[in-house]
């Protein structure tokens, strides 16, 4: 069990690193003027996405499929609303996108 957890944490850590590098490249490509609090807000949104997904599938795994799907539906709505706000915040102030 512990071994599985360590392997899982290692793989998720690798993926997190790749996501961070990719996010940085996307920000430069789109010409986003990122600063520390924008990175913080973006990270918060992404980890909220992971957390809510983890929560919904935990509930489904318990056998409470209907409750899990309700949680998933609520999460999508919440994340779309927050994501739209975040996108507007990031896209309003940017330089010409780099090719």
């Amino acid at each position: 069990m512990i071994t599985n957890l360590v392997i899982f944490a290692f793989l998720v850590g690798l993926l997190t690193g790749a996501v961070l590098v990719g996010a940085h490249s996307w920000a430069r490509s789109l010409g986003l003027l990122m600063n520390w609090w924008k990175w913080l807000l973006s990270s918060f949104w992404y980890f909220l996405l992971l957390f809510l997904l983890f929560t919904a599938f935990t509930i489904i795994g318990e056998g409470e499929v209907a409750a899990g799907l309700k949680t998933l539906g609520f999460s999508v709505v919440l994340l779309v609303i927050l994501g739209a706000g975040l996108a507007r915040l990031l896209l309003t102030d940017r330089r010409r996108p780099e090719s």
Partner: protein
Amino acid sequence: MKEKPDKKEQPCSRREFFKVGGAVAAGLQLGAVAGAGLAAGKDPSTHSGWQHLGDNTQFVDRSKLIRKGPAFHIVGEPTRTLRHESAFERQGIIMKNMQQYKDMINSFDAGEERIEGRGNMEAPDPPQGPMKYPPMDAFEEPMLSWYKDRPDLYEADKVRMEEIMPRRARDSETYKEYYTLINAWSGSWSTREPITEPPEVSDFKIGQGRKIGDPMPFKSPAHASRLIKKVAHHFGATMVGITTIEPDWHYDFGLRGSRDKGSYKIPEHWKYVIAFGIPHQWEQANSNPNMASSFDAYSRSTIAARRLETFIKSLGYPARRHSPMDGYDLIGVPYLVKAGLGEQGRHGIAITPETGANFRSAYITTNLEMEIDQPIDFGVEKFCEHCQICADLCPSGSISRAPNNHEMNHRGYRHWEINQTTCYNFWMQSLGGMGCRICLIACPYSRKANWLHTMARKADTADPTLAVAKSLTYLQKSIFDAPEAQDFLPPPDGEYANFREPPEWLDVQNYLDIEARPPRKDRMP
């Protein structure tokens, strides 16, 4: 930054690679998290109370939960329970007064069963023909006066004997194939080992009637307590607590093994009570009330009690077990609270940090001097005041909807009280393993011990404002589907519903080559 001229000619720039790689990694991460969530939800090691049976005696560090004050507040003159006041014990008196049962060979008598140490027996099916409940005047004192004070319970008993039990017999026969496996499962746990001698004799005997030896001295009461808890845990107890005897919390009749079935004095060697609990098998507990049984946890706690009793006697100390299959001389819930295993909930039973309400208890009375535990407070009292999920789901309406228990006075003590008689009446309406455990399993504290519910329970315990408790209760009621209370009843009022669908191993159609007709065609497989 200017790019080198030749870089434009590359089919895939480093940045493009990172962008695509990052997007793929995000997708993989989302998939991994969803998969991990599924695994966390399914993980059988998160079945509450079954997480591990390792060296830790208890899962929760109770030292931070100790509350000030007594386990219960005395608000009147404390009295002990008389036989007719217990719905289960009263059944024996009732049957002796009913002509139809008088004619039966080996008539069932729950009170006799308990006194003879045979524990909780199921009532047999009633005899054929119409049932006629005796008029109130046919009963002798003190039951007659008690009935006159509680005519509602006379009516409830009458309904059970004239309508509910014959209907259960009929439906049990109609659907017996469908409940083949749950009946086999429930029955296989029902081993019994009667206590046939009074405490002054039986508590001092071990094995084949051999007298116990001289008591082995312990280094200190704390050492004794620590050893007993460790051993009880290895014998199968999930959580263990120790406290002192309270004479008010013992029945005032029918000491097991005693020929005198009347009132008795608490034996002098009963100085301490070891209380412990073991949860129900998780999957079948969730498919209450018809596809589940009480006897799995009854049996496990009884066997642990027999082992622990023998262990204590082997060290030279008298001991007596009080357990579901071998009977009790004491009332358990107050001892669970006083021994710090948990708090009493609205449904009248104890709620522990490890298992919620999903467990069955057993007890050992002894004179082995041990360090005692203190009552704990992890927020149950306040939580129960606003939750009411158990009261909402109780098919017999036996659980109080009062805002709190402040006005309740039960034999001199303030605590939650349910209507045991109407509760028992519903037992007799359920099929399968019989009985009802909906309040045990529907209790929010009984949810799985995975990261999600563990986090919720810890947040609730740490929050004095009740905001977390109210939010969690709202979420449970609005997100998690459950049948309506009435659905648990037999047709035509209900449909023999279960709290959750039964596990596949209790579905006869998956394993047996027989025709089985489910009582709920629209919802059962």
